[in-house]
């Protein structure tokens, strides 16, 4: 808010900028003359600086835009929780956008600085700064602050006595990245990078021991990841090598605390006892770190051969400390016996280590002018070795002797993935290129088995898939291009019931520049995946057809129209076992969606050399069948320039959301914005 106020305070000064044109015009002249003076005095170096400068002397040293205003909402009417989960825009003053560029004609500390920030005051605000000086450094900074609110009743137990807000979160995600390249454009380029992402806020999660009852409790998510990396790039004309060393630190300090009577979701007595949680203290202390080594290589030893490869080794590890203290009238299964207890102390400790190796290599061979052969290979393998110990001490109801339970379990997950692919591209004519190829994917995995599994603690899976590839690119005339892709596969082994098995996937795209002002595009995608195994009977088919049109008659001087329409259908049927009686049933998910978006700009009759502009459009999403949904976002905007560099605007947007099966999740609201945009 303070930043916003500071920006607001700067606006009057900024708004006066156009009145300062004469001094601004003088400034570059002064700059030029000072450069000239330096040239006269300093001789060759200064002269070279003036000569090398690509910035014409009349170029302004500062350019930028400021876009700020105020938003009003008439609602939301309906479900505020759903509105916040999907839209989450509030009313109040906003800095919608700020961007500027500073150029130093003398190129002392920097050549140019580009900065921009958007949506300050809204739940997702960003800032980005780039500063560079030719051949010396290149600095980039990126910051994002995204509020993530999610509280949807359809994710909770609708019969929960404390309300249907379980598994809801109101957290902030902070992400920043800063990188510095030294000597950009030179042959040897050292670089450094730091990135950080974190999540904190509050939410409602569930505490439970087993299936006797579950209790919604408030939680405070607190986690963060830092990544440091540095390396050197060697860029030569015929090859490049990057050697990089990096490290990651991670922490998760989520907490839960509740000190009130909480009957849980059960809603009925359990073996004559009314279960309740009266006190809970829960804290996670997770610490992780990792180092990694990466090497990248590209090479073009001859004009007909290119090669590239990558190698990476990382070894992330995690240390776990966890404690919980629960009190109330509770029940759990301890050592295969049901135990009613009044309090419980639980302590968990554990560690995991996951050495991870991945590498890929490939080459592109051009033995003939019309022929290209691309071969690539990759492997990715890791081994997650872990050990966890969870010790609990229960104070049973009516006795004084505590009961101790310890659950110790080593665990591992081993995954080996490999892929080999060859593509051949042949220019049949100058207008037609044909492609064909083959991909072989194979691997194996050992993972923790399900509770009921008869294979012991671990289960093994295999992956073996052969995929044929084909495609063509056709450009009969300059204005028309067509691209078709097809892949079809037959799998011997797959990991999961819903994995791609025997599938056909095709994609097509046609682009046509009908006239100088009208262009059309069509996209088509179809995926058909089948697994006829008697236990699975998976039948999946999706089709997606999109049409896009861009129309700007007379060079877009008066009207510009952009429109897209998408028709999407999905049909998925798969057999599964319904609980508790393990009856064989079919899970059916069908979706039939119409999606459209458009934007029309109309230049209105002008005044005093200025042209007001009307913009209208928006988007709609209408789907039917398994989860019918309506989501509308129409908008209109009128921009009125009042000076060459200042324009006012007014905007209206409507947000409407509804679901026939979940009427209580619908919402609607108007949003009005008035603002000013100042350009320099």
């Amino acid at each position: 808010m303070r930043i916003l106020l500071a920006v607001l305070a700067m606006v009057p000064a900024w708004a006066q900028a156009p009145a300062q044109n004469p001094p601004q015009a003088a400034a570059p002249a002064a700059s030029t003359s000072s450069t000239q003076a330096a040239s006269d005095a300093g001789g060759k170096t200064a002269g070279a600086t003036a000569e090398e400068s690509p910035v014409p002397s009349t170029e302004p040293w500062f350019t930028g835009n400021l876009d700020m205003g105020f938003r009003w909402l008439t609602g939301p009417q309906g479900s505020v929780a759903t509105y916040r989960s999907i839209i989450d825009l509030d009313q109040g003053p906003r800095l919608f956008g700020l961007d500027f560029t500073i150029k130093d004609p003398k190129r002392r500390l920097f050549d140019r600085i580009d900065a921009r920030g958007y949506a300050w005051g809204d739940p997702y605000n960003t800032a980005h700064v780039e500063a560079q000086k030719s051949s010396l450094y290149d600095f980039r900074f990126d910051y994002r602050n995204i509020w993530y609110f999610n509280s949807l009743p359809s994710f909770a137990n609708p019969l929960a006595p404390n309300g249907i807000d379980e598994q809801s979160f109101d957290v902030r995600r902070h992400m920043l990245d800063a990188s510095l390249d030294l000597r950009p454009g030179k042959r040897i380029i050292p670089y450094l990078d730091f990135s950080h992402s974190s999540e904190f806020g509050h939410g409602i999660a569930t505490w439970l021991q087993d299936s006797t009852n579950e209790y919604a409790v408030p939680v405070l998510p607190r986690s963060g990841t830092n990544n440091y990396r540095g390396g050197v790039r060697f860029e030569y004309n015929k090859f490049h090598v990057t050697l990089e060393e990096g490290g990651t630190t991670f922490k998760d300090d989520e907490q839960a605390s509740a000190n009130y009577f909480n009957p849980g979701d059960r809603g009925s007595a359990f073996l004559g006892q009314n279960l309740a949680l009266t006190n809970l203290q829960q804290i996670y202390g997770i610490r992780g770190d990792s180092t990694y080594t990466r090497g990248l290589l590209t090479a073009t030893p001859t004009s007909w051969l290119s090669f590239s490869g990558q190698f990476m080794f990382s070894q992330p590890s995690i240390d776990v400390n966890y404690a919980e203290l629960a009190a109330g009238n509770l029940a759990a299964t301890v050592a295969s016996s049901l135990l009613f207890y009044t309090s419980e102390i639980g302590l968990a400790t554990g560690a995991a280590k996951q050495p991870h190796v991945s590498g890929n290599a490939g080459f592109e061979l051009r033995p003939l002018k019309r022929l290209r052969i691309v071969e690539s290979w990759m492997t990715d393998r890791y081994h997650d070795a872990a050990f966890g110990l969870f010790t609990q001490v229960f104070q049973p109801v009516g006795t004084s002797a505590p009961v101790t339970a310890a659950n110790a379990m080593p665990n591992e997950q081993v995954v080996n993935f490999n892929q080999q692919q060859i593509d051949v591209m042949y220019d049949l004519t100058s207008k037609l290129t044909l492609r064909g190829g083959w991909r072989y994917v194979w691997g194996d995995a050992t993972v923790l088995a399900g509770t009921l599994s008869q294979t012991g603690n671990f289960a093994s899976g295999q992956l073996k898939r052969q995929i044929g590839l084909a495609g063509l690119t056709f450009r009969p005339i300059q204005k028309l291009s067509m691209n078709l892709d097809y892949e079809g596969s037959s799998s011997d082994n797959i990991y999961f019931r819903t994995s791609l098995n025997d599938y056909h996937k095709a994609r097509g795209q046609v682009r046509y520049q009908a006239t100088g002002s009208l262009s059309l595009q069509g996209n088509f995608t179809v995926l058909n995946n089948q697994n006829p195994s008697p236990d699975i009977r998976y039948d999946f088919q999706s089709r997606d057809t999109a049409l896009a049109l861009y129309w700007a008659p007379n060079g877009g001087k008066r009207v510009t129209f952009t429109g897209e329409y998408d028709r999407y259908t999905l049909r998925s049927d798969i057999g599964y076992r319904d609980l508790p009686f393990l009856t064989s049933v079919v899970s059916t998910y069908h979706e039939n969606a119409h999606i459209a978006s458009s934007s029309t700009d109309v230049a209105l009759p002008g005044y005093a050399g200025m042209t007001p502009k009307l913009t209208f459009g928006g988007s709609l999403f209408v789907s039917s069948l398994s989860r019918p949904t309506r989501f509308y976002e129409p908008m209109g905007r009128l921009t009125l320039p009042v000076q060459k560099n200042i324009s006012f605007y007014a905007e209206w947007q409507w947000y409407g959301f509804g679901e026939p099966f979940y009427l209580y999740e619908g919402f609607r609201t108007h949003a009005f914005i008035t603002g000013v945009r100042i350009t320099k």
Partner: protein
Amino acid sequence: MTRLLPTSGCRYILLAAAVVVGLATGSAQPQPTAPASSTEKQAATYVGSQQCQVCHEDIFKAFQQNPHHGVETDKKRGFENNACESCHGPASKHVESVSAADIRQPAKLAPAEADRICLRCHQNQPTHVGRINSSHAKNQVACVACHAIHKNGPQGLVARTPAAINQQCSGCHAAVWASFQNPHRHRLPEGAMSCVDCHNPHGSFLPHMTQAFRGNEPGCFNCHGEKAGPFIYPHAAVNLEGCGACHQPHGSANPRMLTRPQVRFVCLECHANAPTPTPAATLGTIPPALHDLRSPRFQNCTLCHQQVHGSYISRDFLK
């Protein structure tokens, strides 16, 4: 435990380094001049960018602000003072005849041919390590489809702001952009994210040209770091199939961008195998029968199995 020795990896690196040193002996000299497509063009010679300015004043001026203007002073690749001709080829014939036929026009070349011009300088850069795996390269999407070579300004060479990047990508990927009009989506239409936050348009060895971060983790974990692990009890689906096993990352009509409207179907479509699987069976054993799905208490699996991405405490993802 599978042996994963960094030392063997180091041996490969050393081997690669030895190859590189061998190649380096032939790389000290600047690249030979641009290959010409005809005998006539081979005879042409460089005239310098100042000569181009005489007729192409507007393009020349705009180019002064373009990052490629640096080629004008770049001794590294031997195009000093010949920035225009570094892409358009030697122009002496064109200067004499003033005919468009006597100069190379990359915009009118076949994409693969145009790309070769760009890649003479850019092939050997880290951004192009995954290029040969890129569907863009295989589908003849030329560099100039995204990069504007002559323009100036902060977005001259390529779109920089999230909104501009998204607009550029959606120019071809109309169906993908349509999926961002779903109610549950990542914040791309709002400009808080861009396509390149998750995808590397130059290519990646991960499927769908997904960006790789840190220890070659998929781009999802760059923001959702708490789901990266390693966990004491990882959920196999996350690592074996990726986030897309349960989520539609571009957007969905279903809450939390899930592939199904109700959580239990997301889970039970995989967790439906008998406890004694055949050797060729898939992973995912059926849950115990205590889960009475007729009761609303059990219909949202993640209400109890809340650490479904992986747990540090509970084998069943309860804590």
